[in-house]
């Protein structure tokens, strides 16, 4: 099985603006491998380093040391992003554009020919169930609809790897279910999905493998049943892995 996403001893430090304050270590020697065709869940409490890892993979943050590769290409090269789709957490797309115009704009950046763009837009608008609103400005969309536009833009180039940062955050149960269905469908199509989430039940349902990160360090990586082990569910395993001690009431 070919490795699509790889990080080697990835370290990211953010220097403090305060005088004599030590630099904050956001990631420490992170080694990660994601294989082609798998849905990979990236878990961790807030501030664990999930978004920083994604930012390095997308070329937004330069690592202090170590390297990251997408399809074997160093992430610092823009061409590494040609075959990926990215859905950031809570983004508000250009409000003055319609969903169709937004997708056309992103398709132009990928250099898709006009005919293919039209076909792709029709497919994606249908996939995210926005046919009725495709010519309406995005400013009139609900939160769930905006998230689905986001998912459509992430898929415009028919990517081989999807990076999703908390794709179901802020959505109602119906919206969450729809996003989950889309991820499942992409998995069936053989796409690789790398996503972070706090919804552990969801991760348990759709992921082949998961990684748990805490304070910038990789704590566990493996198949869901390997991580869960003898514990009741993934949530229990997650809490144990990050060393959470429940406090009993006096």
């Amino acid at each position: 099985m070919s490795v699509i996403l790889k990080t080697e001893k990835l370290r990211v430090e953010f220097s403090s603006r305060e005088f004599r304050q030590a630099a904050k270590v956001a990631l420490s020697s992170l080694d990660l491998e994601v294989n082609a065709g798998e849905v990979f869940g990236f878990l961790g409490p807030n501030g664990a380093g999930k978004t920083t890892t994604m930012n390095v993979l997308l070329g937004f943050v330069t690592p202090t040391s170590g390297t990251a590769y997408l399809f074997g290409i160093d992430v610092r090269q823009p061409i590494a992003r040609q075959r990926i789709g990215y859905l950031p957490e809570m983004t508000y797309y250009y409000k003055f554009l319609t969903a169709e115009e937004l997708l056309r704009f992103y398709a132009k950046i990928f250099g898709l020919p006009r005919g293919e763009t039209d076909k792709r837009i029709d497919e994606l608008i249908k996939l995210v169930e926005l046919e009725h609103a495709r010519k309406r400005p995005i400013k009139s969309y609900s939160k769930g609809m905006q998230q689905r536009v986001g998912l459509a833009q992430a898929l415009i180039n028919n990517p081989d790897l999807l990076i999703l940062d908390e794709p179901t955050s802020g959505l109602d149960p119906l919206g969450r279910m729809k996003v989950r269905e889309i991820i499942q469908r992409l998995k069936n199509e053989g796409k690789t999905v790398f996503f972070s989430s706090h919804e552990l039940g969801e991760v348990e349902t759709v992921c082949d493998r998961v990684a748990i990160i805490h304070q910038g360090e990789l704590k566990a990586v493996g198949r869901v049943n390997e991580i869960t082990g003898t514990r009741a569910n993934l949530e229990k395993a997650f809490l144990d892995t990050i060393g959470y001690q429940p406090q009993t009431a006096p």
Partner: protein
Amino acid sequence: MKNIFAVAGIVIKELYRRKDFYVLFILTVLICLVMASVNIFNDKQIVRYLKELCLLLIWVSSLVIAITATARQIPAEREQRTLLPLLAKPLTRTQLIFGKFLGCWLACGLVLICFYAAFAVLAASREHAWPLLNYFQAAFLHWIALGVVVALALFGSLVFAAPSSNSTICFVIVVTILCIGRYLNTVALSLAETSHFLSSVIYAVYFAIPHLEIPFEMRNLIVHDWPLVAWKFIGLDTLYLLAYATAFLVAACLVFRRKPVN
């Protein structure tokens, strides 16, 4: 280049879907119409003053549009987080800066076409003349000067945190250049005897700033029906101003390369 044009297309779309331009255009045309319809002291030369005031209004309006529209481009992308999915595509930061610049500059060109067309119709209604080449020279250099202003505002949007502070600073700089830029060498010369250091500083400023007053003074071509400026001087001034626009854009790219995305 396709990426730069794609970004520019979105900027132009945003500008014509927002109401700012329409409000300023209608306001400017209304003021000009009111001025043109009033008969002041039965003075036949009054048309010149009216033309001068109308062109001044066009300059002010175009500067307001260019600066405010450009100053919000990158901060809005950052605030709305649209920068993230955009830069996650095979688009470099340099392409984004150049795309934003091109979009704002082309949009300013479209704005100028509307303003100068309205002005030409208004002037022709009083003077029954169409000095089209004069209009072209004045509008063309005006547009090139706006290129410098757009590049300056784009650079400012990466240096200053708030679009409002950037807009104010850019507006003050541009108006100062237009009003006193041409006199700085005279001031420096007069200070040469008393304070050599101050004189040198003012000389340095005089040679460092982009002299936008040359396109600004092209208004006289229309106001006083002066003969056309030799095309080689138009070409030289274009090159001179484009060099400044390029310098600001390169500076913007260098600053943006070091900026965190979120």
